[in-house]
């Protein structure tokens, strides 16, 4: 794109390929707008030449021509309505796809700065606003503008002095129209605003109904809602007030215009320069100016919001993706050797990581511990190249991630987050997300290995149970299980578990660990966890505090040594006062899944 344009003119970008269609439609539009004017000229002829001169055959000819012209207008209008809709919809579709494609390339930093709702509105309500203007609006705009022009020309054709009358009456009409446009646009925006507030109020109440009811807050929320509902009523009433003034006003002006034409026509008639048919035709011709003006005034608000919508969409399209493939980025087949070479990183001004050094040989398991805000998740995100380091480099198999083809690399990752996102679809669909071509058996195997099949049993359709977006209706632990199955099925070379089992009970977690060991043998993994039992299987544990590695080593060594890890462990289980810590663990465990534990503790 050589030059960045904002606003509606940028839509022209999507026109190539449709040029011929657009040109044909333009011709259609001009002819169509001319048709009713031509029809009125025929009516004038019928009055002046046939009726006044008592020429019946001419009357018959006039009527036939009239019908032919109107039939032509019918066909053309049909073509125009459909053709313009196609042009408009192709533009919107192209724009929507570009916008979505572009969004998926933007970095996490962008998504953390912009609220999700804001971004989604660009893809939906803004694109819809454009769609409305381009499909129905475009027809209204083209047809009515051309009709007004044709009618003015038509008046001059009837008689130039009658044409002048129209020109005299037009300025006040335009002033009134302009007044209405400005006022009603402002009113329309206020209506939109109050609708948005009211809708948000209802949506929030519905989403939080459990708490509203649990704390008996019904009355307070009703009072808030009443305010929003009443505000919406008032803005709507005001918008209707403007409408109620404008349209009758235009109607009244139309009558004044007609009076003027009668007055002037009367004088011209007396002087004998025109005949009564011309006056009659002029009165009807005026209709063709006033009627379209009303429709155009209605459209103005739509065009304005479409312009505003386009500007916001352009804002996204012009955002350069922060993370993208360098020229000549390599396809990397990941072995799993992971290095952080003096990596420094910050989200804002304060560094979150200070010159971090990490080296994980392929196939090893690294655990990150430390209090929240220490930089654990940030480290994990740098492995996925969701951000680039400010200093230093993250290397996989010796390749700087900035020189690696991003998408192919990420397809070899498995990521599980603490609050995992589930997509609308069945549980099986969600497991299959990272490998859409996986067979039903693959899915069932993974589900069984992780224990998803056990929780799915409570649904009548099992793994085919439909999950709503976000996973509503499932507990946090259940969502975590599903997302672990998803990562496992992806068969990743590097697996990142960011507090991935925090809501899962320990026996189930052991089941998961066994599955991971079996299915991902020899794969590199990074674990972030607060449960000590979870990190003990790591080959190396790093303690991250305030963005610095303060201790590293194996579990037993760390626990034996004086240092932050032991403090952390004490915090977790500094429970000597309650006596829990000293309680010996005895006996066999009832679940086979848990038996792995009994062989190793103490």
């Amino acid at each position, binding site marked *: 794109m050589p030059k960045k344009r904002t606003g509606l003119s940028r839509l022209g970008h999507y026109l190539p390929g449709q040029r011929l269609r657009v040109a044909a439609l333009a011709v259609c539009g001009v002819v169509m707008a001319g048709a009713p004017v031509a029809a009125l000229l025929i009516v004038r002829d019928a009055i002046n030449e046939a009726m006044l001169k008592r020429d019946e055959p001419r*009357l018959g000819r006039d009527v036939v021509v009239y019908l032919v012209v109107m039939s032509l207008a019918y066909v053309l209008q049909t073509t125009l309505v459909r053709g313009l809709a196609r042009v408009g919809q192709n533009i919107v*579709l192209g724009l929507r796809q570009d916008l979505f494609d572009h969004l998926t390339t933007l970095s996490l930093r962008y998504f953390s700065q912009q609220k999700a709702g804001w971004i989604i509105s660009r893809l939906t309500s803004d694109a819809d606003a454009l769609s409305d203007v381009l499909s129905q609006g475009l027809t209204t705009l083209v047809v009515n503008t051309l009709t007004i022009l044709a009618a003015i020309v038509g008046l001059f054709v009837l008689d130039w002095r009658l044409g002048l009358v129209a020109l005299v009456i037009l300025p006040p009409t335009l002033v009134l129209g302009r007044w209405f446009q400005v006022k009603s646009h402002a009113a329309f925006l206020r209506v939109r605003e109050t609708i948005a507030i009211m*809708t948000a109020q209802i949506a929030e109440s519905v989403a939080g109904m459990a708490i509203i009811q649990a704390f008996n807050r019904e009355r307070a929320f009703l009072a808030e809602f009443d305010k929003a509902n009443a505000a919406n009523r008032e803005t709507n009433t005001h918008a209707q007030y403007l*409408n109620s003034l404008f349209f009758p006003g235009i109607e009244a002006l139309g009558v004044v215009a007609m009076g003027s034409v009668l007055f002037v026509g009367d004088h011209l008639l007396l002087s004998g320069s025109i005949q*009564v048919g011309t006056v009659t035709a002029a009165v009807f011709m005026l209709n063709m100016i006033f009627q379209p003006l009303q429709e155009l005034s209605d459209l103005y608000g739509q065009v304005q919001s479409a312009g505003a919508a386009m500007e916001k969409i352009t804002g996204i399209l012009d955002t350069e993706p922060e993370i993208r493939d360098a020229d000549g980025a390599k396809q990397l087949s990941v072995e799993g050797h992971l290095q952080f070479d003096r990596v420094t990183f910050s989200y804002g001004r304060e560094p979150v990581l200070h010159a971090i050094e990490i080296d994980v040989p392929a196939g090893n398991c690294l655990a990150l511990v430390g209090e929240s805000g220490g930089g654990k998740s940030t480290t994990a995100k740098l492995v996925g190249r969701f951000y680039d380091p400010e200093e230093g480099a993250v290397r996989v198999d010796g390749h700087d991630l900035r020189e690696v083809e991003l998408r192919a690399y990420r397809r070899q990752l498995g990521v599980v987050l603490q609050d995992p996102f589930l997509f609308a679809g069945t549980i099986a669909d969600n497991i299959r997300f990272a490998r859409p071509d996986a067979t039903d058996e693959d899915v069932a195997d993974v589900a069984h290995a992780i224990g998803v099949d056990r929780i799915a049993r409570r649904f009548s359709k099992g793994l085919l149970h439909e999950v709503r977006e976000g996973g509503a209706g499932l507990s946090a632990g259940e969502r975590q299980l599903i997302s672990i199955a998803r990562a496992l099925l992806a068969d990743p070379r590097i697996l990142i578990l960011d507090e991935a089992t925090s809501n899962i009970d320990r026996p189930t977690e052991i089941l998961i660990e066994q599955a991971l060991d079996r299915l991902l043998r020899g794969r590199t993994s990074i674990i972030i966890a607060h449960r000590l039992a979870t990190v003990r299987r790591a080959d190396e544990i790093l303690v991250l505090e305030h963005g610095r590695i303060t201790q590293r080593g194996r579990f037993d060594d760390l626990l034996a040594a004086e240092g932050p890890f032991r403090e952390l462990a004490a915090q977790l289980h500094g429970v000597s006062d309650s006596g829990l810590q000293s309680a010996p663990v*005895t006996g066999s465990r009832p679940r086979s899944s848990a038996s792995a*534990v009994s062989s190793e503790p103490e």
Partner: protein
Amino acid sequence: MDPPDLGLWPTTRGLAHLWREQKQLVLVGLGCAFVYSTLSLAIPIVVQRAIDHSIAPTNGHRESLWPYLGAIVALAAIRFPVNFTRRYATSRTGIRVEWRMRELLYQAYLRYPRAFYDVHATGQVVSRATNDLYPVRYFIGWGMTQGLQSLMMIFGIAIVLFVVNAKLAAIALIAMPLVAILTYNFGRRVMPISREVQQLKADVTEAADESVVGIEMVQAFGREDDVQARFNVKASRVRDGVLRQARVEGLFLPGLLFLPSLSIAAIVYFGGTDVIDGHLTNGQFYLFYQLLLQLVWPLEALGWILSLGQRATASASRTFAWLQGIETIPEAAEPATLPDGPLGVTFENVHFSYPTGSEVLTGVDLEITPGEVVAVCGPTGAGKTSLLNLLPRFYDPDEGRVLVGNVDVSTVPIADLRTVVAVVTQRPILFSIPLRDNLTAARPDAPWEEVVAACEAAGVAHFAADLPDGYDTLIGERGVNLSGGQRQRVALARALIANARVIVLDDPMSAVDTQTERHLVTNLRPALAGRTVLIATQRLSTVEVADRAVVLDDGVVVESGKPQELLQSGALFSALFGEEVAVA
């Protein structure tokens, strides 16, 4: 769960009732519509007379044009305020009806049980109270009055034309009813498509929404191509839907221009021959032409109103069905009162299942003494949340009883019950209001010292000072987004501030980091003193707050006792937590 839509007759009765509530506005609108119709007929008649008596006098005697012009302007001057009042009053009727229906719906939403919200997506519930009401608003606000006015105009015009020239009127009016039929059919053809387009647009919103909210997963697995392809398919479907709609529009709408032109052609021909024969004056020819043009809109409007009426009744029947058919959690006819002082909690042979699946609780017996803190443990999916949700009567058990203070909860007024039971849900729910108001949501008049004390105990004070406006910081999409752990702590503080005698905590610290949890566990115990508490948790460190732990497995209580004793028993509890102790 969804009651059947209401039939046509009860729906109409419901709508009529709402209409009658706005009687004054309706009457003003109808009165003005009558005057407006009369004036709109009078103006062309004056013009006709001006033509026949002054501009092109039929009898050779030429009158002055001025009185006619004066009359035209005067009529227009009267018509302006009448038309304004007509439009304004009518649209206000619709706005007020919409406002009323939304109020009724929202009030109902506040009463609906959790089971309702389990099966209805938020979007559906919201749109029932917003977008779905617009057809009703337009039908009542515009349709009813415009329909009556259309009838007045149609009859008025027909009478005038028949009086002027009966034969010509008959010929001219033949084609006109087709306008109404055409519009009606158009509405019937296009409405299903436009509803479908709305649905397709909703699909696009959903696709956009989940890709944006789930972008990290999409990028993490490098699945951008998949979601792009899926989005493109949905976006293309919208285009195809709109184009289908345009095809129907292209077929019907130009007909609205074409049909009247058939009548006009008839007027020009037959009226023209009458003029030639001297049976019709120039002015009368004008009158016919003009009134035919004026007839188009009322007929068109009738067609619109008929199809709008169908949509409005469909939409209203769904709304009324919800208003009348959804069962709320039943209130006892003779309400019991809860005793004073600390309250015990008892579950007696409690069975519970969700409508969609198998039984989750299969006979829970559990007795909790007043002031006891009990941890509810168990594997993922054991039924912990379901058990906790029975206490504030989010659901009622299928079988068995839940007692608070030895009173069956189903006999206590729900508001009373929920005053003594405070909950923290697994996913903390905060509202887009200042932090301060979120904290005091359950007890707006809580003394500030108590709020501060609860915030200290729940670890809110720890981060509240760092927020841009402290306790006055606006929370949520339009304000500050708190982290999961912070939200949980606010929810916990809110429950403490509620000053409830029973507190239900569903995994209240799962997203809190270990150091903070440590702090919470130490501080929470004194803050909970004297209250009966149920905590569901997966963390041993949280279990420490409790006097006793019970273990749920497959919907029944399988273990109960002091945590350290359970650890030694070697049963499920020690499987759940034993290793954590062992490694530390």
